[in-house]
């Protein structure tokens, strides 16, 4: 590893307590370096999604500090916040595509952070960005669907469009929040393969949360276990034995 590279993500004593008193995250410390493929595992409701959404501040945290490439996103406001978010691509469980718009339109929206607002009001994307979007669609092998309406694609295709959207953003980090939860096993492999390729060929850091232990072991380089808002495991995939997963999911000894 390079000498003293800046971590992509740093969590510094991060806690999140929801308005109704539910604890989402409890004193989490975390450092993710460039190029890692990190899989977050845990039960549903354990705080995996909260963790993901804390990274790009779709959810605000209650305590602590989160830094992206060394810059605090917790303290960022307005334009600064949006510039940091621009560096983070996100993939969602429900794809979050605009159904009535074409695939191209959907992929282009990944670029909004790069334009002044008035240009966006008229939807004026540059030809270079259109080409960039088309390139991203080739990466996920959906170039032929460029002018198809998003709701005419299958679930797996829609998820790959949303990957292309994230790629078009040219981020250094990709967050994938249960990207395969609504997909069948066949398309699951494709989406996970795409993520792996992005990680290895394009060198983007990937943080993905999953339910499935086998997928976590097959794709991840590092596993983080979350239980009841607490980090209960953090280590390379080789150390994540079945005993470890057992603890993450069933909470063998530690309190919950």
């Amino acid at each position, binding site marked *: 590893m390079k000498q003293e590279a800046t971590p992509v993500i740093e969590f510094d004593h991060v806690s999140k307590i929801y308005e109704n008193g539910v604890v989402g995250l409890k004193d989490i410390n975390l450092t993710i370096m460039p190029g890692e493929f990190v899989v977050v595992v845990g039960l549903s409701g354990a705080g995996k999604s909260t963790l993901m959404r804390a990274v790009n501040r779709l959810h605000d945290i209650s305590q602590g500090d989160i830094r992206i490439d060394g810059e605090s996103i917790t303290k960022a406001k307005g334009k600064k916040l949006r510039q940091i978010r621009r560096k983070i691509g996100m993939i969602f469980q429900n794809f979050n595509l*605009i159904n009535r718009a074409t695939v191209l339109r959907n992929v282009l*929206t990944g670029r*909004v952070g790069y334009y002044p607002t008035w240009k966006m009001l008229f939807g004026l994307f540059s030809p270079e960005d259109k080409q960039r979007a088309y390139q991203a669609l080739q990466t996920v092998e959906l170039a032929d669907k460029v002018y198809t309406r998003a709701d005419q694609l299958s679930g797996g295709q829609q998820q790959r469009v949303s990957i292309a959207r994230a790629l078009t*953003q040219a981020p250094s980090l990709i967050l994938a929040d249960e990207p395969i939860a609504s997909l069948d096993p066949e398309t699951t492999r494709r989406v996970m393969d795409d993520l792996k390729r992005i990680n290895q060929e394009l060198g983007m850091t990937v943080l993905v949360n999953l339910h499935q232990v086998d997928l976590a072991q097959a794709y991840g380089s590092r596993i983080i276990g979350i239980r009841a808002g607490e980090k209960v495991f953090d280590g390379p995939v080789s150390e994540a034995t079945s005993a470890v997963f057992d603890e993450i999911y069933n909470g063998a000894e530690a309190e919950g």
Partner: protein
Amino acid sequence: MEDLLPKQKLNWHKWALTAVMLVALVWSAFITDAHLGLFFTNFSQFTELFVEMAHVDWAYTGYTLEPMLQTIKMSIIGTLLGSALAFPYALLVSRNIVTNKVVVGVFRFILNIVRTIPDLMLAALFVAVVGIGPVAGIFALTIFTFGMVSKLFYEAIETIDPGPLEALRAAGGNRIEIIRFAVFPQIANYFVSYVLYAFEINVRASTVLGYMGAGGIGVYLQQALSMFRYDRVGVIVLVIFVVVLAIDYVSGKTREALL
């Protein structure tokens, strides 16, 4: 021994409500001096008017076309201006766009008040302000459309899928970009449909606005009525009927194609 069927509990809520409604009905008949007898004894007068109307003064048809077109023009402009105002306003009162409850509450309250003002009253007020003519009608229709369409708009906005909004936010979009790329594409078709619907209603409404001096065919209707030329009233009513049917048909087909 066989168990007897238990008695159903008396649903006194229902009975009380029915009683209140009956009392309200009797009270209404009393306060409005309703004499159905009077209606039936004078029924011949009523039918006479219909007979007079049925003797349509066809020669008058030509004169009604110009004001009828003006009515349609008024409706188009009024619908357009009202909808243009309604769009930003609807965003302002949508709970999934503006999270400040006080802002939403206050502006919704204002909207509800605007919606209670009858269209004819708006027409009469604007005639007083800008004078007799179609401009008063356009203003009245603008406010009327604004109230009607704002509500339809914000109800549509509040049912959209929040996913794309989140995706845009994650990609670094600001509020305007979120509206442009995540809100607008989801509701554009509904908006066009509602605007067309408002246009249908406005064509009907604007036919009578002229009665208060606010331009269009209503002015001619008022003249014919005050001169007791029911044969001309008949023509006007027929022309209105045909135009409304035609516009409803075209607009309905367009809306069907959109949704």
